[in-house]
Every structure is written in C-alpha cells, then in structure tokens.
C-alpha cells in the first residue's frame, strides 16, 4: 500500500497545503511518496519535499510544460505515475481541485472530494451541503483519488525526513492549452488559509476605501490575514481571493473576527471550524452570533477603531 501526494509548490518551496495532504496520506497506513511536477524551480521543491517527515520517496517531473500546473499536461503525467499506487491525494486548493478530477477520470475512478477524516482504508468523511451535513463514504474503486481539506489535517513536519529523489517523465505538453498570465495579489500579510488570525469584513464596510480604513489597521495590529464575505468581494471592496466560504477559501484560524458579516450558511461553511470566533454586528439577530464565541452588538464604525486602539 503506497500513496502518492501531488505537491503544491512555488518558487522552489513546498506549500503548507501539501503538508496537510501528507498527513492525510499517512493515515492510509502505507508508504507516502510525493510527486513534484514543475518547471525550472521544481528541483528545489523536490529537495524540500524530500525533507518532509514521513515521506519515503519523491518523484520529480521537470518539464517546462508542467511549470504552470496546466491540468491538460499534468493530469496524464499523474495518471501514468499512479499505476504504482493505491491512492493519489492532492490538497483541496484551486490547483488540486482543477487537476485531481481530471486524473480520476483518466483512471476511470470516482474522486473523493475534500475529505476531513480517514475512517478506514477506503472510508472517509466529507462535508456536503455547504458543511450542513457530514457524509461517511466508502469507495469501491480499485484506486483512490482524493482531495484533502487542509484545515482538517495537521501539517506534517517540513523537516526531519530524508527521502530519495527520483526523476520521472510524462508526455509533456498536450498542446491543448497555454498559460497566459497570473495576476497575483501581492501582499505582505499571512496567507489566508494558513493564518493564525483572520479579520474578515462584510457588506457593511460600504466600499473599498472604507474596508481598508476600518479592517486594515485592526489586521495590522494583530498581524492577521484579511478575509471577506462574498458580498464584500462582489461589491469590489477586495479581490476575489479574499473570499471565505463554501465556494471561497476554507479557513480555521485560532481567531476569526467577523465584522459586518451576517453569517449566511455559505459563509459559515468556510470558517466555522475556527478556534475562537468573534462577531461584531449591529443586528443582535444576525445568524453569525449563533456560532460566535464572543459577540458584540455594535456599530462597527465605532467599535472597530476602539478595538484596534485598545488591543
């Protein structure tokens, strides 16, 4: 029994999401190998992957065609390598969610999406209906293709291992698609999905400058990442990758501060596993208070500057 984890990496570094997927893979009980597919910087990432505790082998597929993780190019590579494995796992990031189902279909198996626990060799739990129900599912396929909700698994130690790195080859460019550009949101803040503290703002923040004026100083004070509801993103206060929720990012920080967010089920789906939830809302009946550990009914335009000052 061996499991293959598809690494997410950038700039020669392994993303934290990969470390959670390694933990999930280890729970399957067999060897854990990691596949690093990428361009020029893949070698550095493979060397980093080799140090992850619990990983016994790293496969490195270096080819310009894999540099941007285009699913058309990477999925056939993974499906080929999967031959020797009982399970293929990827983190439920946008990259993992893009590639893994393509791999599953090439292997003619059903993917298990977004698992939150491993119950047995082929049995898992996963949230459905925006996390309003938890399904226990069992696969009858000969091979498993799994995406892993990263907030549900601890990160494996990034160091301590000493796996061998082995080169593998795939067919390279499938000639179907090309990468044009990435408009990356540049920020010195902690990344949303791995931040210890998140300050999140909703529709109540009125517009971009107001959002910035009220949310940013509090986040700065706490060294926090900034999140948002869909309403705030849709209205253009903040970029799309700030969205927390069923269809945005799933987060579970130690502290989540929801400001001017009503607490729609789609939003709760993305943050209700946070350790401590604080809600500031002027409506005492807002559903967010049903999940908040600490609730303050107040006008945010008074409460937030005061909180920023007193912390």
């Amino acid at each position, binding site marked *: 029994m061996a499991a293959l984890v598809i690494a997410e990496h950038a700039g020669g570094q392994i993303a934290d999401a990969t470390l959670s997927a390694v933990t999930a893979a280890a729970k399957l009980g067999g060897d854990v190998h990691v596949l690093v597919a990428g361009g020029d910087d893949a070698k550095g990432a493979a060397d980093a992957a080799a140090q992850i505790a619990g990983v016994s082998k790293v496969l490195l597929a270096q080819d310009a065609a894999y540099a941007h993780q285009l699913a058309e190019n990477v999925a056939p590579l993974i499906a080929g390598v999967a031959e020797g494995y009982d399970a293929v796992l990827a983190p439920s990031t946008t990259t993992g969610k893009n590639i893994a189902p*393509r791999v599953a279909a090439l292997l003619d198996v059903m993917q298990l999406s977004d698992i939150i626990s491993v119950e047995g060799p082929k049995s898992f739990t996963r949230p459905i209906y925006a996390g309003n129900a938890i399904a226990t599912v069992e696969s009858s396929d000969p091979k498993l293709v799994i995406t892993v909700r990263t907030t549900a698994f601890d990160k494996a130690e990034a160091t301590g291992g000493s796996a061998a790195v082995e080169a593998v080859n795939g067919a390279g460019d499938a000639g179907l698609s090309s990468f044009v550009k990435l408009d990356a949101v540049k920020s010195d803040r902690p990344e949303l999905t791995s931040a210890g503290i998140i300050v999140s703002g909703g529709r109540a923040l009125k517009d971009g400058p107001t959002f910035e004026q009220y949310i940013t100083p509090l986040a700065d004070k706490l060294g926090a990442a900034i999140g948002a509801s869909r309403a705030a993103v849709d209205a253009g206060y903040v970029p799309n990758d700030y969205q927390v929720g069923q269809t945005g990012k799933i987060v579970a920080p130690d502290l989540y501060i929801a400001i001017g967010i009503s607490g729609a089920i789609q939003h709760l789906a993305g943050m209700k596993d946070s350790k401590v939830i604080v809600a500031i809302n002027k409506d005492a009946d807002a559903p967010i208070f049903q999940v908040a550990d600490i609730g303050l009914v107040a006008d945010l335009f008074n409460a937030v500057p005061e909180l920023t000052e007193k912390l």
Partner: protein
Amino acid sequence: MKILVPVKRVIDYNVKPRVKADGSGVDLANVKMSMNPFDEIAVEEAIRLKEAGNATEIIAVSVGPAKAQETLRTALAMGADRAILVETDELVEPLAVAKILKAIADEEGPGIVMLGKQAIDDDSNQTGQMLAALMGRPQGTFASEVAIDGDHVSVTREVDGGLETVKLSMPAIVTTDLRLNEPRYASLPNIMKAKKKPLDVKTPADFGVDVTPRITTTNVSEPPVRQAGEMVEDVDALVAKLKALGAV
C-alpha cells in the same frame, strides 16, 4: 457554434438542509429545489455569447428525475434553445454524469461545454474536469471571464493566489465561478415561450452509460454544533474576554 450547458436540480441555496434522523441522507421532501446557482451563471454566459454573435444554439442538459424538467424549463425561459433530460431516479455520480455528457457532446459537437464549478448539494467540484478528461479537451475551471478569440477561448480563472488567464483551443470545457456574471430572471413571456421549446427525454442506457455508484454513503450526520458563546456589552469587555481566552 453550439454551447452545451449541463444544469443540475438541487436544493435551493436559501434553504438550510436538514439531516434525516436515521442518518440516511438529507431530507429533500417538500423542500424548495432550484437550478444550481453556478449553472444559472453558465446559462447566462452561454446566452451572452450567443447575443454577442459567438454562438448559434444553446442546449441545456440535465441528468436527474422527471422533475429536473422544471430546471430545464428555467434554462429555456432564460434563453436556451432546446433541452435534453437524461431521466433517472438513481443518484448519478459526477463520473457517470461526465460520461453521459461526453456521449451527448459527441453527438452535438459543441464548441464549448459550460458547466457550474460545483453543485451545492454534493459539493464535488469534479464533473467539468472529468468531462474534459474523457473528451481529451482543455478545461478552464472557476471562470470569472470568458472571451472567444477565433478558434480559441481565453478563460480568466479565480485561483487561490489571484486571477490566472489560460488560452484553450476549442472545443473546450469551461466551469463558472460566481463573479462571471449576474444571471437574468426569465420574463413572463419568455416563461410562456419556453413551454413550447423542444425538450427531449432520454435515459442513461440510451448512451450506454452504467450509472452504478462507485461510492457508497454509509452515513450522513449533522456536523458538530458550535455552541453560541457569550455576548459582551462593549469593546472593553471584548478585549478582556479575548485576553482571558489567550486569543490575542
């Protein structure tokens, strides 16, 4: 160019799902059902491509029970030209849906298959990617912008780090994200007209697809309930409580 738009009938997004006491699933009896929100966005995008002269015909497809006809009629009322219901009372998994869609795409030859990124009931986020694999065609998932450019389509994708643009050769598979567009409401005259638009009914067997599930759901339970905590009077009390919890 034809556009194929798969639409799924799901629990309405405003309804809070209730888990059945016996753990067999979510109670859907007498619950409002609607078109999956991402699929509405896909229908809207297809209509806009047609209005812009980039497409000639929009075909909506649904795999599901007889009642999924209502969902297809909604798509027709929005502006789809005809519809295909692949009728079955079984729960059809994304892989089998993708196989049925492939068979339909082989017959119809669409330039784009436009799906939702995710069905809000199973939250699988798989079908479009699987269809792309089975067809051996490129995929532009989580689209926030779609632009036709000759025999290529440019798709801007909502990814974790920002917005990524890819260029795909057509035929291509696109899956929609929330910000792609704001779907229109069907007007009353269009709802009336939609009743006369063609709607074919088929079965999975017509396409030779075996829909036997690969995954069995052995139990469905409520998630752990979070206890509502404490309401505090003012910011001072909030700060004190945060410190007491060691949260700051």
